C-alpha cells in the first residue's frame, strides 16, 4: 500500500509549532518562513579565569552586535540574555538537549557561549553550542581560540557564524534531490558572509510526527545528510547523502512532516563502538576508513580496539564523510555518512563480521599474489625470449622456453579459482547466519578470473615456440637439400 501523502497537509504540525512561537512574539502568523528572521538569544557567560568583567563583556557584545549588523543584517534578530543560562559553563560539552530549560519560548535559537581560557596557553577561548527551539536539537560543541583580546569581537562573530545553523522545511524531492525552504533565506544579507544558506551548507533531516495524543515526536533521520548543491531564491536544492535507500520516505503511518536543520563540523572526536550483530560481542580489530562524501579518496582512520571502540578525530574534511568498516583490507561490513565532530557521544553500531567471507577473501588474496608473481616472471621471460629471437640466439630461446614451461600453467590457476568458488558456494548454502558470497567477494572472483584470462595467456610463448620450430624445420630442410657427397669410386 502506498502511504505517500502530499506534503502540504503534513506541514500542519510544523505550522503549529511555528504558530506558537509567532503568537508568542505577537507577529502575524502569515509571515512566510523564508521571510522570517531568526530570533536568537545569546547566553554569554565567562570563567573568572578569563577576566571578562561586566564592562568588558558589554563592550565585547556591543562591538559584536555591530559586526552582526554590518555583515549579517536583519536575518539575525539578537537578544542578549541578561542572566545567562546556568547550563553555560565547564560542562557544556556534556549537556543533553533534554536538560535545556527555562529559555524564552519566543526565540528560535539560543547560543550558549562560555568564555574561558586555554590551560596550556592561557589564551581566551570561546566554547559553545546552539540550541534550536523548534526541533529541540542541541548542536555540536564548537570551540574557537581568541588570539588577542583586541580581536575578541571578531572572534566572537566568527564563532557565532560557526554556531549558527539555518532551519528549513523539506518541501519536496526532485531528481533525487531534496528541496528545502530555508528560514530567512529571502531576507537580503548584509554581505556574503551573512548568507543564511549557501552552496555546501549541510542539513540533517528531522521528522516531526504527530502522535495519537496530538503531541509531536521529533526524530532525527539517522546517518542522513542534505548537502546544498544550489540555492535558488529561498529554496536550496540538496544532495541526499544517506546510509539508507529512501531516507525521506513518506511511508509513515502517522501524519508527519520533514524539517531540516543546518549542521557544522565541531571539534569533538566521533566515538563509535562496533559490535557483532549476532553475539553482541565487540567487533575488534576491524579497519575504519573515511572518505569525503560522496566519493572522495579514502583515508585510513584506524582500527577498532578490543572492545570494538574507535575514535574518529576531526580530519581534513570539513564536510560530510563516509565511514567504512572493513574486515581484512577489503570486505566492507558497514558504510555510513557522518559529520565529523557532530557529537562526542558514543554510538553503538551492530555489524555482521562476515567471518566466512573474510576467510575466502584471504584465500583469494593469496591466489591473486601467486598470479601476480606469475605475471611478473612470465613477463620477464617473454622479454628475454624476444631479445633472443631478435638476436637469432635459437639455443638461448629454447632454454628460456624450457624455463617457461616449468612455470605453473594458467589452467592450474583457473582450477584453483574454480575450486575456491565451489567451496564458497557450498559454504554459502550451508551458512545461515552470515553472508558468504558478498557482492565484494563475487567481484573479487570475477576480477581474478579476468587476471587469469588477461595476463596468463600462453600466446607469447606459443609464438616463440612456433618461431623456433619453424627455424628448426628450415635448418632441417636446408640440410636435406644439400647435395649428398659423391660416392667413393668403386
Amino acid at each position, binding site marked *: 500500500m502506498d502511504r505517500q501523502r502530499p506534503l502540504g497537509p503534513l506541514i500542519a504540525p510544523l505550522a503549529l509549532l511555528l504558530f506558537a512561537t509567532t503568537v508568542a512574539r505577537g507577529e502575524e502568523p502569515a509571515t512566510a518562513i523564508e521571510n522570517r528572521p531568526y530570533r536568537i538569544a545569546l547566553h554569554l557567560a565567562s570563567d573568572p579565569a578569563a577576566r571578562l568583567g561586566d564592562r568588558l563583556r558589554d563592550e565585547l557584545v556591543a562591538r559584536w552586535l555591530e559586526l552582526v549588523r554590518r555583515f549579517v543584517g536583519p536575518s539575525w534578530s539578537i537578544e542578549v540574555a541578561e542572566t545567562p543560562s546556568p547550563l553555560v559553563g565547564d560542562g557544556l560539552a556534556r549537556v543533553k538537549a533534554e536538560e535545556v530549560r527555562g529559555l524564552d519560548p519566543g526565540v528560535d535559537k539560543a547560543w550558549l557561549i562560555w568564555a574561558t581560557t586555554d590551560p596550556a596557553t592561557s589564551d581566551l577561548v570561546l566554547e559553545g553550542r546552539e540550541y534550536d527551539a523548534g526541533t529541540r536539537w542541541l548542536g555540536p560543541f564548537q570551540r574557537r581560540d581568541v588570539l588577542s583580546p583586541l580581536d575578541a569581537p571578531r572572534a566572537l562573530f566568527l564563532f557565532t557564524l560557526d554556531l549558527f545553523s539555518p532551519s528549513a522545511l523539506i518541501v519536496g524531492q526532485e531528481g533525487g534531490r531534496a528541496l528545502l525552504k530555508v528560514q530567512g533565506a529571502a531576507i537580503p544579507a548584509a554581505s556574503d558572509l551573512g548568507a543564511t544558506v549557501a552552496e555546501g551548507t549541510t542539513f540533517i533531516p528531522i521528522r516531526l510526527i504527530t502522535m495519537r495524543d496530538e503531541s509531536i515526536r521529533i526524530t532525527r533521520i539517522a546517518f542522513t545528510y542534505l548537502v546544498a548543491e544550489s540555492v535558488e531564491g529561498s529554496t536550496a536544492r540538496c544532495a541526499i547523502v544517506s546510509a539508507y535507500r529512501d531516507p525521506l520516505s513518506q511511508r509513515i503511518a502517522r501524519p508527519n512532516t520533514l524539517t531540516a536543520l543546518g549542521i557544522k563540523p565541531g571539534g569533538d572526536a566521533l566515538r563509535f563502538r562496533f559490535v557483532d550483530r549476532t553475539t553482541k*560481542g565487540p567487533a*575488534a*580489530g*576491524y*579497519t575504519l576508513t573515511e572518505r569525503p562524501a560522496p566519493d572522495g579518496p579514502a583515508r*585510513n582512520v*584506524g*582500527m577498532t*580496539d*578490543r*572492545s570494538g*571502540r574507535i575514535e574518529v578525530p576531526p580530519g581534513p574534511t570539513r564536510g560530510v564523510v563516509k565511514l567504512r568498516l*572493513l*574486515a*581484512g*583490507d577489503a570486505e566492507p561490513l558497514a558504510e555510513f555518512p557522518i559529520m565529523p565532530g557532530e557529537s562526542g557521544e558514543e554510538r553503538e553500531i551492530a555489524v555482521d*563480521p562476515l*567471518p566466512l567471507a*573474510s576467510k575466502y*577473501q*584471504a584465500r583469494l*588474496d*593469496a591466489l591473486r*599474489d601467486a598470479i*601476480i*608473481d606469475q605475471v*611478473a*616472471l612470465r613477463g*620477464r621471460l617473454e622479454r628475454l625470449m624476444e631479445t633472443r629471437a631478435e638476436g637469432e640466439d635459437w639455443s638461448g630461446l629454447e632454454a628460456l622456453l624450457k624455463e617457461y614451461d616449468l612455470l605453473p600453467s594458467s589452467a592450474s590457476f583457473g582450477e584453483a579459482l574454480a575450486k575456491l568458488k565451489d567451496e564458497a558456494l557450498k559454504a554459502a548454502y550451508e551458512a545461515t547466519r552470515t553472508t558468504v558470497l558478498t557482492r565484494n567477494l563475487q567481484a573479487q572472483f570475477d576480477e581474478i578470473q579476468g587476471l587469469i584470462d588477461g595476463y596468463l595467456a600462453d600466446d607469447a610463448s606459443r609464438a616463440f615456440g612456433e618461431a623456433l620450430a619453424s627455424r628448426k624445420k628450415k635448418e632441417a630442410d636446408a640440410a636435406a637439400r644439400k647435395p649428398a657427397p659423391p660416392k667413393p669410386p668403386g
Partner: protein
Amino acid sequence: MTRPAPHRLAAAASTLLIVLAAAAASLGQDAPVVTPDDLLGSYPFDRITLPDDTVILVEPVSPRPLPPTEPPKAKGSSSLIPPTRIPLEGNVGLPGEPSKVETPRANARKEEGPDVVINVHLAREAATGRGDARDFKLKRAHIKKIEYFEDVLLAEGDELAKARDFTRAFEHYLRVQQRAPDWPGLTDRVHALLFAEGKQALSDGDVARGLRLLRELHARRPDYPGLVDQIAAAYAGRIDRAIELGLYPEGRRLLHELEGISADVRQAQELRAKFQELARARAARVGSGTDAERLDALVDALRIWPDQAELQAEYARVFAALPTLDVAVTDVATPPGPWVRSPADERVARLLFRPILADDSEEARKGERPDQLAAGIEATDLGRRLVVKVRAGIPWSDGSRDVSALDVARALIDRCNPRDPLKYQARWADLLDRARPLDERQVELQLKRPLLRTSFQLDAPVGAAHAGADGRVVLSARDRPLVGSGPFACFAATPDSIDLRAVAEASGAASAGALRRLREVRYDDSAAATAAFLRGDAALIDHVPPFQAATLAADPDVTIGTYARPVVHVLALDGRNPLLRNRTFRRALSYAIDRKGLLEESILRGPSTAADLPADGVFPRGDPADAPGVKPLEHNPVLAVALAALARGELKAEALKLKLEYPPIAEVQAVVPRLVEAFAMARITVEPVAVPRSKLESELRAGRRFDMAYRVLRCDEPVLDAGPMICPGYDAPPSAGALASAASPRILQLLLRLEQAAEWPSARGAAVEIDRELRDELPVIPLWQTVDRFAWRSRLKGPAETAERLYDGLETWEIAPWIAKDPWAR
C-alpha cells in the same frame, strides 16, 4: 819477446779509454749521467768515475765488492812481465816430457784478474760509433772511484731515514738485503732504522707499532745503545695507561713482556710494585665492610694482581661466606619490578617475586609447589569463577608483613589499569570481570570466559600492595628498596648490573657452596659478554651465539647448555606505517631475503641442520601449531625488485625507506648488514639501528611505533604466545593503538578470535590457521629458527644441560671461588 804483450795491453787500454771517454761524452750529450730517480724500480747499476771525472753507469761489476787493487810497483821494475825463473835442474826437458819453460803469456793472463782489470757492460747503449758494443775491459788503475749499486741504495736509504720516510728507507735496505745479505754496513743501518722508526712511532703516539719495532731490534741486537731504556719507557707509559683505564690483564701482559726484555730494568720493578700496591689498596677499600663489599674488593684486587697469596686466602674465606655467581648478559632488567616486559625481566622475575601459580601441573594447582603463592585453586561456574587460596607465612622482603589476598587481588587488578603501562596486560584486562579478596587468605576472580591455561595468566609476578607503582617502598629519600617475595631480593639495580641476594629464609638450609648472591652484569654486545666469560669474570653466560658454540664447547673448562625451546628470528613490521601496511611491499621484503644462505653464512657459519633451519612462520618447526604443507618462503630477487617497484607505484612513494631496529646479539649483528644489503638489491633503503634488547622489547610491547624490528622469539605455547609474537604491542594499553600495528588485519582478526577460544581443540585449530595464513599475509617476515644455548664454567655446579629458563634449579646450584690466572703464571 816479452814486450809485445804489454804493448798490446796498453794499446787496448788506451783504446778502451778513448771509447769510454767518447761514450761518456756522448752520454753526457744525450742525457746527464745521474742516478735513476727510482732506485727501487731501476735495473741495478754501478757508478764508475774515471780519472777525468767522467762518470759512467755500468751493469753491476763482479765480483762484489771488487778486490783491492795491486799496489803500484816501483819505477825500476815497471815491466808487467816478471823475470823468467829457471829451475835449478834446467828448463830443458827430456824427450816425452812437457816443457819446463815458463812463458810470459801465462803470467800475463794472471795479470788480467779483477784486481787489475775488470769487464764492464755499459748500463745503456752509448753513441760510440762502434755499433751496439757495450762490453769493455777497464783497468782498475784507471778507475778513480767505483760506487756499487748497494752503496747507492744504502746512501739513498740513509737520506730517506733522515727525512723520516722510514718505509721507503726500509725498502731500499730491503733491496740491498735481497741482492747481498752480507753487504757491509747493511745490518747497522737496519738496526739504526728500526731504532729511529720505533722512537718516532712512540713519539707520534703509535705506541704499539713503536714497541713492536723496538722489540724487533731487541731481538736482533739486545745491546743496541739506549734501546732497553727506550723500550722500558714506552712500556711503562702503556702500562700506566692500562692501569688508568682499569685494563689490568692488559697491563700485566705488557709488564710480562717488559720483564721478558729485561727483568732488571727499573721501570719493570716499579710497575710490578705499583700493581701490587694497587691491589692491596683496593682490597683494603671495603666500604661498610660487609661480606659482599669485602668480596668485591678482593675480587677487584685479585683481578688487578692475582698472584698474592694472602689476598687469595682471604678471598676464598670470604667467598665461602657469600658464594656469588656472576652472569654475563647483554641486557638487564631496567628497572626490575613486578612485571615482565622483556627477556631480562623474564629471567629475574621468578627470583624476586613468587607467582600465584608456578606452572600448570596438578601439583601446583593443589598448592604443593613451594615456589608459588597459591595454596590451592578452586574453579567453579565452568571455570569462570576462581578462588585462589594464598599460602600463609611468605614474608615480603622488607619484613613488614606476609603476602596476603590483598596483594594478590591488587596485582591482578593493576594488570587491568591502562594508566599503568608497566603492568597492563590487554588480554587479562579483557578477561577479568572482577577480583576481590574474600578474606585475608582467599581471592575470588570472576572471569568473562574460562582460562585455557590457568598458569598462563597466574604466573605473572605479584608485587606488594603496600609498595608503590614501581614495586618499591620509601624508607628514606635515597633508599627505596624493591619489595619482593621470591628467594632473592634486589640489592642494587643499575642500567649495567643487577645484584640479587638470597633472602635468609630461602637459604637457611642450603649447602656450603649454594648461591647467596647473583649478579647479572650487562655488556654492550655478545662479543664483550663472551670475552668476559672467557676471561673468567663471569661463570655463566645467558646466550652463546650459534657460530661460537663449537669453539666454546672445545674448552674443557666450559659446558654448553641448551634451552628447551628453539628461538625463531623474525622481522616485526609496524602496520601503522602505510608502507608496511602495503601487502605488495611486504612480499617484496620477503622475496628479497635468501634465508638459507644467510642462515648458513652468517648465523651458523656452517650447514643448516634439522634444528637450525629457515622459518616459514613464527611457530617452531614440529610445534603442534606449525601448519603442515606450508610452502617455504622463497628467495627471488627478480620478484623482490618487481614487487618493490609495484609497491612504490601503489603508494606513490619516491623512495622506499625504513629503519630496522635490532638487538646487539652477536648473530643478529652479523646478519643485519647482509639483510640491509639484500633489501638494497631490491631498491629498498633500510637504515639499521642497534637498540639494547630489553629496551627494544619493552618499548615494542608498550606499543611504541617502529618500522621494522628484529626480534628473537621463544614460543612456550603457540596458542597463548601467538599474539605478542606476531604483533609486539598486542598487550599494550588501548591508548597506544598498538593493535593497528598488526600489518595484516586478517591475521589480527584471527588472533582476536583465537583469544576468545574457550577450549583447546578450537584454539589449536585457530593457531594452525594463523600459521597457514601467515605465510601469505606476512604480518611479520619469518627468517629462521635456531637452537638457543647458554654456557657455564666448571666452577659452577648444577645447571642442567637442557633448561626451560636460564635459572632453572638455581636453588641447587653451587659455585667455587676462582680467580683467573695469567697464562704465563699457570
